[in-house]
């Protein structure tokens, strides 16, 4: 059975009042000083976040290539008439998301003030279906007592206290309030992406057989940190009663690994409809906010990302996930940029007798450069495209003078939030699907990398790639 990519969805959740619980802001805010006040002063409104050109590209209202025509800074040039709904995505507001957090919680961890009604912010029907009915709302007195005792973290909306989230064990760090908030945020945003996928693709929830979560959070308790299977929890919340699932953990490369696994399961006939889903990373909110504050720009890392992809058997019109060209980076190979790109791109193409320039588009790590450059972290996609172009020169496919044209024609500006796994090439799949169905593109290769060394178990990096072709 040939596996095809039936549908792709990208979602964003604008959560300005949760940025303070990102890993870096939480650390900086715990120290004496004005950091939290400075952060608050530079947070964006929902309208500003929705009209931000990279976000519009993320949900499909703007082609990524068009970003090159928008003057810098992009945050100073919001897209006129921008909608928070896109052909393959949605930008959700914080109000409905808090309600989703409450619904995602089955253990009484989240208490929202009974006097607060979450604003819908024009949320889609898919999002509204995931909002809580408010059955477990708390009182302000009880919420303040829990926060005061140190067992709970405050949840605020537009600066006002509207609830809290509590720990579920006094001594288990895996069940601390901030960890549980991260986990529930990943679950709720993942369920949002999955529900939107089902509705946009008209895939009945009952027909999802298997879910692969590529979310980053280490769900578990102290005896099983990272125990996992957020996939099943997301599937349950999204209303997929016949779906089993599992998590794919591979740092930022997980989404591509998950696509490879999903395609393999379909090709082998183990399942008929597999879904890959990734919820957002709360820990990465405001990761570079101290630099954004220094440079007097908005704190751009104020959104949780979400992705969902439907992999099914050949329907005669959707592009194929070509497993014969799945790329991998064996442990004996160098983790240098050249070594990784040779393993992930050159070797799979060589197996199929293809040249680098025969792939229409490469979707590499698509981090928004407007987030990373002010922090001195470089333009990540451009760095990767330069490596690819240099390999094309070394292989005699193009001349040195053709490098800029190769990067322009086969690459794109970064447009994804710096959410780790979310930018890993896969946000381009919605665009690729649209172009392939319109007959303007034949092939795209998604190339993801993962920084395994961050976990201190190996000095190596990792990566995975896959080709989608009509």
């Amino acid at each position: 059975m040939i596996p095809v990519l039936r549908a792709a969805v990208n979602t964003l959740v604008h959560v300005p009042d949760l940025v303070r619980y990102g890993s870096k802001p939480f650390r900086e805010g715990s120290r004496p000083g004005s950091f939290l006040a400075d952060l608050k002063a530079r947070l964006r409104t929902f309208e500003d976040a929705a009209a931000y050109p990279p976000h519009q590209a993320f949900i499909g209202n703007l082609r990524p290539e068009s970003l090159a025509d928008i003057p810098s800074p992009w945050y100073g040039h919001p897209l006129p008439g921008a909608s928070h709904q896109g052909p393959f995505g949605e930008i959700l507001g914080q109000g409905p998301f808090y309600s989703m957090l409450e619904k995602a919680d089955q253990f009484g961890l989240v208490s929202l003030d009974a006097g607060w009604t979450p604003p819908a912010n024009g949320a889609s029907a898919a999002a509204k279906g995931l909002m809580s009915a408010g059955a477990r709302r708390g009182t302000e007195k009880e919420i303040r007592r829990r926060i005061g005792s140190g067992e709970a973290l405050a949840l605020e909306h537009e600066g006002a206290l509207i609830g809290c989230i509590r720990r579920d064990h006094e001594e288990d760090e895996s069940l601390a309030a901030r960890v549980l908030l991260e986990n529930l945020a990943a679950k709720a945003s993942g369920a949002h992406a999955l529900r939107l996928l089902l509705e946009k693709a008209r895939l009945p929830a009952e027909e999802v057989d298997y879910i692969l979560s590529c979310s980053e959070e280490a769900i578990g308790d102290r005896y099983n940190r990272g125990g996992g299977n957020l996939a099943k929890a997301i599937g349950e919340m999204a209303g997929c009663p016949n779906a089993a699932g599992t998590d794919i953990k591979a740092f930022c490369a997980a989404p591509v690994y998950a696509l490879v696994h999903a395609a393999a399961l379909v090709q082998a006939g183990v399942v008929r409809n597999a879904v890959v889903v990734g919820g957002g990373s709360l820990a990465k909110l405001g990761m570079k906010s101290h630099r954004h504050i220094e440079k007097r720009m908005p704190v751009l890392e104020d959104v949780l990302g979400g992705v969902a992809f439907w992999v099914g058997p050949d329907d005669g019109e959707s592009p194929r996930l070509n497993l014969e060209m799945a790329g991998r980076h064996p442990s004996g190979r160098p983790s240098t940029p050249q070594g990784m790109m040779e393993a992930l791109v050159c070797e799979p193409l060589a197996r199929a007798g293809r040249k680098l320039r025969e792939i229409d588009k490469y979707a590499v790590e698509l981090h928004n450069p407007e987030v990373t450059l002010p922090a001195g972290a470089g333009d990540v996609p451009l760095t990767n495209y330069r490596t690819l172009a240099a390999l094309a020169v070394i292989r005699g496919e193009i001349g040195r003078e053709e490098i800029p044209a190769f990067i322009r024609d086969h690459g794109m500006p970064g447009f994804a939030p710096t959410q780790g796994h979310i930018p890993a090439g896969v946000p381009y799949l919605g665009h690729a699907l649209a172009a392939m169905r319109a007959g303007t593109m034949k092939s795209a290769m998604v190339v993801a990398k993962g920084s395994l060394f961050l976990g201190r178990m190996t000095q190596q990096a990792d990566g995975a790639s896959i080709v989608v072709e009509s």
Partner: protein
Amino acid sequence: MFDGKKVIALGERDGIPGPVLAECLQAAGTEVVYQTTACFV
């Protein structure tokens, strides 16, 4: 030029990894006292 020098090698995921920097610098005669690789995204 590196003989007898002590070196701290800071690598980057999309650039040159720390262990690669360390190997080159050791071959050039330095003592690498610390090496690491960072991921800035």
